[in-house]
């Protein structure tokens, strides 16, 4: 078995000449792509390593690196690296690079899908990067027929004409760069539309109050419009597992127009947002906000603070004594504690059901109401449909890129015309840019599976 191996270095795919080539050609370089991808990767790596201000504020950076270093990082922009002009310029350059390259060399490649493989003669086949020649005791057409059957079983599309054959596998894979790049460009388009016209925000709103979108966040370059309508939290409550752990939060929302008219009502919960005029409102957190108590005939509203699984309000009575009110949810009774100097801890004085009263010293203490506060996250993402289509294209494109395109030619001819038995010489060869060695291996298997060759003429000649 002889195997010759030659190193193949095809020059970089040359851009097709283009009238506007002079400006675009330097931008269409794949070298530039590799450089930009590497720089972007390094930038994102730094952004992954250094806490970002947009997520935990500068305090998180200070906690991690100390004040001096944190301020230095903030100054050079790595604490908000994804909004830095450096990062945005890199993305900008990549976009130009991708458009230039896609238009000049990627998209025109689609034309090659239409190309039909020409039939090759035996001599030409032997010059291909991988080829094999065998002598078989069958008629040339039978040999080709057998080969065609075998190739079809392996997934090849076969064309046959008398004693010549061409076969192709994975031609669809040639669409990979086009589909991927259309996807990537659409992704950039979708993200740009969202960044220029979309907005996001979070607001905790007590039940009974309104939320508008004035405090929303959007990019500096912004040409969008904020809704005129607002959202009112009518009611909000929590559902627990029997163990007491939170199962779900709910809020009844009303969309209210500028004239006060209710335009839509919906109950939302985590994973089940309200959508109105392209704005989604999500349930994202929940808590208790305040309690309304009565002391004899005086009504007082106390703000609650979260304390572990409970919420508590404090009311100093004098310099030493403090009353402590604790609620768990909107159903369970209010628990009233007192704490004073000299006591090891707070003492439970009484429990009052919602709507009930209890006597504390000479005072009638009434537990009138408890109000929830609901955390609403909202977003308007007008580019989302394009982004989603882009995702589909990118996934399809990179999957297509995994298919190795294979081309195969064969030619059979009658040799030794004096022999009463049929003797044919079959030449088979081809190539695969992405999987040369796998192609070679399968070529050998295909030829070996053709029956009993009397002998291999060139046992195996493979140029890789």
């Amino acid at each position: 078995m002889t195997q010759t191996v030659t190193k193949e270095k095809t020059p970089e795919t040359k851009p097709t000449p283009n009238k506007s080539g002079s400006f675009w050609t330097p931008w269409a370089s794949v070298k530039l792509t590799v450089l930009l991808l590497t720089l972007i990767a390094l930038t994102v790596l730094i952004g992954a390593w250094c806490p970002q201000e947009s997520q935990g504020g500068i305090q998180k950076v200070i906690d991690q690196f100390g004040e001096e270093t944190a301020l230095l990082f903030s100054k050079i922009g790595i604490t908000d690296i994804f909004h830095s002009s450096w990062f945005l310029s890199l993305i900008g350059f990549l976009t130009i690079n991708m458009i230039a390259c896609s238009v000049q060399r990627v998209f025109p490649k689609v034309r090659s899908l239409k190309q039909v493989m020409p039939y090759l003669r035996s001599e030409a086949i032997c010059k291909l990067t991988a080829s094999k020649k065998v002598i078989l005791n069958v008629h040339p057409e039978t040999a080709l027929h057998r080969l065609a059957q075998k190739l079809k079983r392996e997934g090849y599309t076969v064309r046959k004409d008398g004693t010549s054959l061409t076969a192709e596998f994975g031609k669809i894979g040639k669409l990979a760069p086009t589909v991927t790049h259309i996807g990537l460009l659409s992704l950039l388009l979708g993200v740009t539309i969202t960044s220029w016209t979309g907005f996001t925000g979070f607001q905790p709103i007590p039940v009974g109050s309104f939320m508008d979108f004035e405090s929303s966040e959007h990019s500096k370059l912004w040409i969008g419009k904020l809704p005129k309508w607002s959202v009112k939290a009518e009611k909000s409550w929590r559902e627990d597992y029997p163990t007491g752990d939170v199962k779900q939060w709910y809020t009844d929302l009303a969309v209210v127009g500028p004239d006060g008219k209710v335009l839509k009502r919906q109950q939302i919960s985590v994973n089940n947002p309200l959508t109105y005029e392209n704005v989604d409102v999500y349930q994202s957190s929940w808590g208790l906000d305040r309690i309304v108590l009565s002391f004899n005939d005086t009504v007082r509203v106390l703000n609650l603070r979260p304390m572990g699984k409970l919420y508590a309000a404090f009311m100093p009575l004098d310099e030493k004594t403090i009353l402590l009110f604790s609620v768990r949810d909107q159903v369970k009774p209010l628990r009233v504690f007192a704490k004073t100097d000299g006591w090891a801890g707070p003492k439970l004085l009484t429990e009052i059901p919602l709507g009930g009263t209890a006597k504390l010293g000479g005072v009638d203490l009434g537990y009138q109401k408890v109000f929830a506060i609901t955390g609403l996250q909202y977003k308007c993402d007008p580019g989302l449909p394009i982004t989603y289509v882009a995702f589909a294209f990118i996934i399809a494109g990179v999957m297509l890129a995994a298919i190795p395109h294979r081309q195969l030619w064969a030619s059979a001819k009658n040799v030794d015309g004096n022999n009463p038995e049929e003797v044919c010489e079959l030449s088979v060869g081809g190539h695969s840019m992405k999987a040369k060695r796998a192609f070679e291996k399968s070529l050998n298997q295909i030829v070996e599976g053709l029956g009993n060759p009397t002998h291999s003429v060139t046992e195996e000649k493979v140029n890789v």
Partner: protein
Amino acid sequence: MSDLQLTLTNTAGISTIVSFWVFVIANAFARRKDTMQKIGVIVTMIGFLTLTVAIVDRGIEAQRFPLANLYESLLWFAWATMGCFLLLEKTYGVKQLGWLASLVAATMFLYGSWLPSSQHQITPLVPALVSYWRQIHVPPLIVSYAMFFLSGTSGLLQLWQAGRLRSLACAVIALLLSSLAIGLGTYTPIDSYWLQILFVGGSLLGVGLAWWNLKSINMAIANEEKASLYDEVSYRAIMIGFPLLTIGIITGGLWANHAWGTYWSWDPKESMALVTWLSFAAYIHLRIHRECSAEKLSLVAVVGMLLTLLTYLGFNSLGFGGLHSYGKFK
């Protein structure tokens, strides 16, 4: 964990160690090499099948998709490494990759078995993970990581066959130092700061020196034909891993959008997966460019493997925060 579960997992773990030694020792016996390598492949197959049953059994026992904590994800990683090796072996007959694949899988088993026992127990899911998206998002990522590891290890074999022994040694040192950083970060209280320096410094130094030494060739062992075979295996592994990573990242975005209303939030682990994705995109374009030698591409594949390691295990153990952190085990 049931006894059956434990027996199956241990059998799979032991089989990776056995297959490692069978593949290694095969190289010492020129005449029996083929037979021994075949035995190595069979042992790997047994390990792969046993682990498949172990994972399915864990899912039945837990009554949920068995991929929810670091230990379970390591089992999947070992499973994917064995499975992907068997796939590449079937296509290319690259049995020499066997000892490296077995070594990677065995290391993951050992890493997993040393985790605190709370990780081994089957526990209910935290609310954030209760979603059908979990089984769509995570498995492609794990399989892509396994593919990238096999691509990097094929790159190492390519360097060997191309006679680039010095570069190979430097690349191996880079891998050892970064793995050491992860090991120390997981099991010892050493400050993350030093570990980050060890990981990044070790990787930069090792790969830098490997690149620098590419010109030094040992002609006595260079075998261009085999080198080109490993180059292709490394490339194919990336071309299979890349779409899986793409699917993993995008479905993660879809899940996030479904749950929080935003598909991208620059969470550290998300960003790190993007870094890995961008580096492999760079690799693919370097190949299109066709001016890069196979040896340089092998080193790029090794860099990809280091980034995969950082994405997969580095973020927990080297003290990066974020939503996806499994936390430190100390």
